[in-house]
């Protein structure tokens, strides 16, 4: 509190000629000041690195890693502060604290869509001097690109996510199908399987279509796999009104929502969509890598051992696309322990740590070398099998105002697919105009 302490000092000076009656009040006030000062002193312990993280699914894994770090670096203590589980809520906490130049956060996580925002706002430390190009080449290219903004790098990838296509191996085999390569093929196979199984509660497809960030990922995958996109490569023109994008969105509205997938998916996030699949009520599912472990856990899943996984289908004549996800370590620009923070981040993103996170938390490494490791291939063969999807993964629009663009996209997609009679081109027109205005606002910051 730099502003507060300035005022406090002024009060003390003028306190010299205060009437005796008011002395008690003054005494109380000064006691309070001393108290505040003391607590600030306490917060500035030497060599303590504060790591603000989201609430992890398996906290014990992260605790073990930090314990190891303490053994290797006895002079540094890591204090963990746990924030909310959801990415959006965690974003609100992190931005609030960094916006206020809060020096009590040293290291934090960034979702793959945050680096441009955190770089432009000046919250994330520019790591280019510490994180050499040569070192960067050890990592998968997509997450490195996502952490780079105007030629500088702001985060070190911890683990990677990408949209994957899960299917019921047993059902496909029973009807003599190979995993579908196109969306149309998926629908045809689904029709045959549904007729054959005669189970009224069985659906063809399950995914995430609620009005939230996940909707953007799912819909972009449909648009990309039809050859469309949201922004042009220079990120200054909106391409939502292109016929390719319109066609992909209309396909989802007419053939997925309430058809291949239950109507309820428009209120589904990841857990609900996975639930349908592991209850044996969907033949195909779009989800992130974490779903593999859950779907094959006999305690939670009715389809354990009957699950296959691969690349998402595409439209005929186009190639599959999956949305890039994952988390990065970043260092706050207001941190007073840069060297200690850097050592901690280096440790957490080392080959050894990434292996441990993969084995114990099931998270996919971002270092390419880990995928060649024999122990890795033996213990988590499925992560190795996901590698093609990780290499193909595409980032969502890169913008320092991504949260605004995402809100517009969520609104547009949700309106377009929820109502069977929606006027997709008109909605796309409106969304494009709104996103163009956001881009204009961003352009104001460029010289």
């Amino acid at each position: 509190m730099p502003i507060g302490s300035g005022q406090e000092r002024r009060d003390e000076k003028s306190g010299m000629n205060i009437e005796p009656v008011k002395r008690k009040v003054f005494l109380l006030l000064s006691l309070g000041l001393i108290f505040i000062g003391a607590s600030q002193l306490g917060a500035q312990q030497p060599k303590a690195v504060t790591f603000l993280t989201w609430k992890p699914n398996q906290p014990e894994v992260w605790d073990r890693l930090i314990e190891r770090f303490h053994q290797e670096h006895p002079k540094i203590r890591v204090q963990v502060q746990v924030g909310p589980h959801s990415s959006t809520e965690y974003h609100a906490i992190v931005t609030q604290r960094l916006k206020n130049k809060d020096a009590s956060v040293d290291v934090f996580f960034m979702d793959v869509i945050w680096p441009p925002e955190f770089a432009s706002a000046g919250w994330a430390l520019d790591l280019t001097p510490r994180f050499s190009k040569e070192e960067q080449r050890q990592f998968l290219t997509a997450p490195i690109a996502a952490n780079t903004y105007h030629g500088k790098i702001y985060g070190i990838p911890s683990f990677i996510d990408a949209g994957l296509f899960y299917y019921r191996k047993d059902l496909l085999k029973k009807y003599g199908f190979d995993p579908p390569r196109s969306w149309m093929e998926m629908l045809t196979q689904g029709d045959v399987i549904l007729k054959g199984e005669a189970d009224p509660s069985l659906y063809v497809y399950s995914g995430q279509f609620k009005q939230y960030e996940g909707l953007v990922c799912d819909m972009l995958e449909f648009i990309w796999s039809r050859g469309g996109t949201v922004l042009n490569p220079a990120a200054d023109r909106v391409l939502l009104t292109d016929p390719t994008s319109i066609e992909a969105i209309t396909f989802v509205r007419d053939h997925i929502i309430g058809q291949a997938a239950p109507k309820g998916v428009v209120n589904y996030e990841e857990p609900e969509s996975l639930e349908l699949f592991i209850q044996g009520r969907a033949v195909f599912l779009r989800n992130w890598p974490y779903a593999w472990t859950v779907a094959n856990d006999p305690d939670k899943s009715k389809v354990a051992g009957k699950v296959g996984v691969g690349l998402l289908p595409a439209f005929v004549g186009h190639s599959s696309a999956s949305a890039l996800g994952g988390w990065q370590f970043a260092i706050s620009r207001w941190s007073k322990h840069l060297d200690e923070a850097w050592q901690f981040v280096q440790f957490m993103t080392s080959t050894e740590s990434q292996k441990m996170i993969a084995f114990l938390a099931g998270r996919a490494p971002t270092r390419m070398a880990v995928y060649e490791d024999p122990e890795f291939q033996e213990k988590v063969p499925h992560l190795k099998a996901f590698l093609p999807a990780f290499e193909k993964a595409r980032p969502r629009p890169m913008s320092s105002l991504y949260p605004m663009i995402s809100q517009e996209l969520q609104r547009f997609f949700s309106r377009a697919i929820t109502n069977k009679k929606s006027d997709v081109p008109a909605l796309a027109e409106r969304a494009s105009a709104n996103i163009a205005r956001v881009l204009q606002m961003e352009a104001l910051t460029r010289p």
Partner: protein
Amino acid sequence: MIAKQHRLSLVLISPALLVLVVFIGAPVIQSVSLSLHRIVISLPQLQTPFVGLANYQELLHDAVARHSFWVTIVFVSTTTFFELALGLLLALLIHRRFPGRGGLRACVLIPWAIPTVVSAQMWRFLFNDAYGMINYAIFGHRVTAYVPWLAEPGMALCAVILADIWKTSSFAALLILAGLQIIPEELYQAARVDGAGLWRRFWHITWPLVRPALLVALLFRTIDAFRVFDLAFVMTQGGPADATNVLQLYGYKKMFIEGWMGYGSAISVSVFVMILILAIVYVRIVGRRLLEKSL
């Protein structure tokens, strides 16, 4: 002497005033000032220029804000109407003397005592399309007939409204019950002697005398309903297709998710002004009538 007393009374109310100024006055002024600037927290290069009423001007032309306004109006009017009607029924019921009345009165308060976030989560599970109790209660094992309540825009709004009615009717009941309890028992006895039936006793004694309490409940409920946020936030996040995107939720998204502090503040200040106007109208018209008639 009088001046001294006056001074003492000022001293005595000053702590309360201070609390009001610090916790209500200051944040309101802060919000108003934020709403007059262009503040985008992820673009500090833009500084925070004073833009006058530009945010409000933009708000007037914002189709989503207009939509959110109507969603809020529908929510406020339907929830208030049903909460007062149900609250009156409940109050009449628990006002009668019967064995176990104390227990029932306590039970009526349970929905009100549950934190909104918890009850919203509960309703979200109840309305679930695949394993929700509501579908099970209506359709049993006929899974194909299950309705995805929260997936249809109209029904999603109804679901949020229902959850609010369930939760706050008991609060209205409590206020109305207080009104019922001050009606003297003699009036009913006299009416019975005159041969008035149940309906006439209600219409000529209970209704006019309980009306002031009803009006107080109306005031509380409309103002409170305008501020709805948590129910929609937990149950639907404003979706599907913005069907439950109430104004406060829209403002929250602008401010904390998009980081557009100025514009978000303009939304919350607008809600504040709407509530303020409503409160003034109530206190002026309803309050005067309430005083005259009840005396």
